């Protein structure tokens, strides 16, 4: 007895059902790109640290300022003689209620924001390219000035440079006899 394979009469070809390919919407055409939504805000974290966690040179600056009691040329000459001046940022206000203005922008800040930015901002209020950083750090400046005690923070910010930026700063603030304010920031990039 023989078994015969009976093919359908549709041309004699074995047809296998094919799955229908579906392309994701993203590559169908440019106009179909999903709505990206509002840009993500930059992350700014400012964490208070005990003073003892500061680098020895940051502590030395805070100690010297405490020893001097008032802000005078002796503080500047100390920074210059100890070669620590270039690691600092110094701001002071023109009036009692006026904003803090950049008077000196040291190497760490210029490394992050560039020489052109530093040149353009000397004598002007803090306008770093991150609103979160400006507002956050300004509150720290105010605290250091009003409390009359050094403030030490670790700062992490994502929208200042292409890569996240992490640094520490020791802030020493003064309220001057004419009501003006001044703050010295000793910065260390991490």
């Amino acid at each position, binding site marked *: 007895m023989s078994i015969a394979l009976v093919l359908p009469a549709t041309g004699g070809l074995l047809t296998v059902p094919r799955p229908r390919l579906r392309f994701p919407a993203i590559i169908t055409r440019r106009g179909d790109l999903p709505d990206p939504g509002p840009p993500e805000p930059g992350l700014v974290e400012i964490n208070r640290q005990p003073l003892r966690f500061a680098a020895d*040179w940051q502590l030395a600056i805070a100690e010297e300022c405490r020893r001097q009691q*008032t*802000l*005078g*040329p002796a*503080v*500047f000459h100390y920074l*210059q003689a100890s*070669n*620590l*001046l*270039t*690691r600092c940022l*110094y701001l*002071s206000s023109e009036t009692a209620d006026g904003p803090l203005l*950049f*008077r*000196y*922008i*040291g*190497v*760490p800040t*210029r*490394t992050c924001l*560039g*020489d052109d930015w*530093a040149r353009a901002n*000397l*004598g002007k209020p803090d306008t770093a390219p991150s609103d979160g950083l400006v507002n956050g750090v300004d509150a720290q400046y105010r605290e250091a000035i009003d409390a009359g005690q050094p403030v030490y923070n670790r700062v992490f910010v994502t929208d200042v440079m292409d890569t996240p930026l992490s640094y520490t700063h020791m802030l020493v603030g*003064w309220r*001057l*006899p*004419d009501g*003006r304010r*001044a703050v010295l920031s000793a910065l*260390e*990039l991490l």
Partner: protein
Amino acid sequence: MGLALDRLISDLCLGAPTADLVAACETTLALLPVRTLDDAARVLDVEAAALEAEGCGRIWRIAVLDSVRDLLADLVRAGRSTAVRPTAADRELLLLEREWLALLAQVERGTGASQADADALWSALLAVADAPAQGLVGALVKLRVLVRVLADTATPESPEFRLLATTLAAVERLAAGLVAAEGVRKAAEVDALFTAAGHVMAPITPPPALIEDASRDTGLSALTVQRVYSTMMRLIGGNA
């Protein structure tokens, strides 16, 4: 100011100060704008005239007051910054004042002052009186001690006490003003120093011409010079 003080001194020289005259002195001294060391020295003239008008028995106080007045005159010549600068002599005076006050408090706490206590107090007081003052801090110590002595030996309503207290307040106001002015001047100087230093800083990114010049002068490749420069900037920025 000069005329007002001259009139007070003239009135005081006519005789022992009356209650009306002292009241006039107090009002005048409180209202006078004591802005300079010279002003303070003139205010002390009023007090000296009042003490002298009281007659003998005030010689020691007059001597102290005269020494303070002479000191203020010296400070006028030396300038404002010298006046507010703390000196070793003034620090010594502060120490002597503290010792005298401590001794005074100890005697006051005791049940009765012995002759030895009185002698010790007198010695401590003379030590303050004899020690030289060099600045306003020292002058204020002398005046404070004098006021305290008067507070213990004269009634608060006595002319000399009221006048000296007014004088002390005037000199304290002056000292506070001068110290504040000195602080403002120093802070402005600091701003200028930082600003000047900021304008002469080496750039983080050196201009190509600088690299080319350094490369030519040192014989190193431009890339090496660039790396040396970057390392140097990291070092001075504390990020080696």
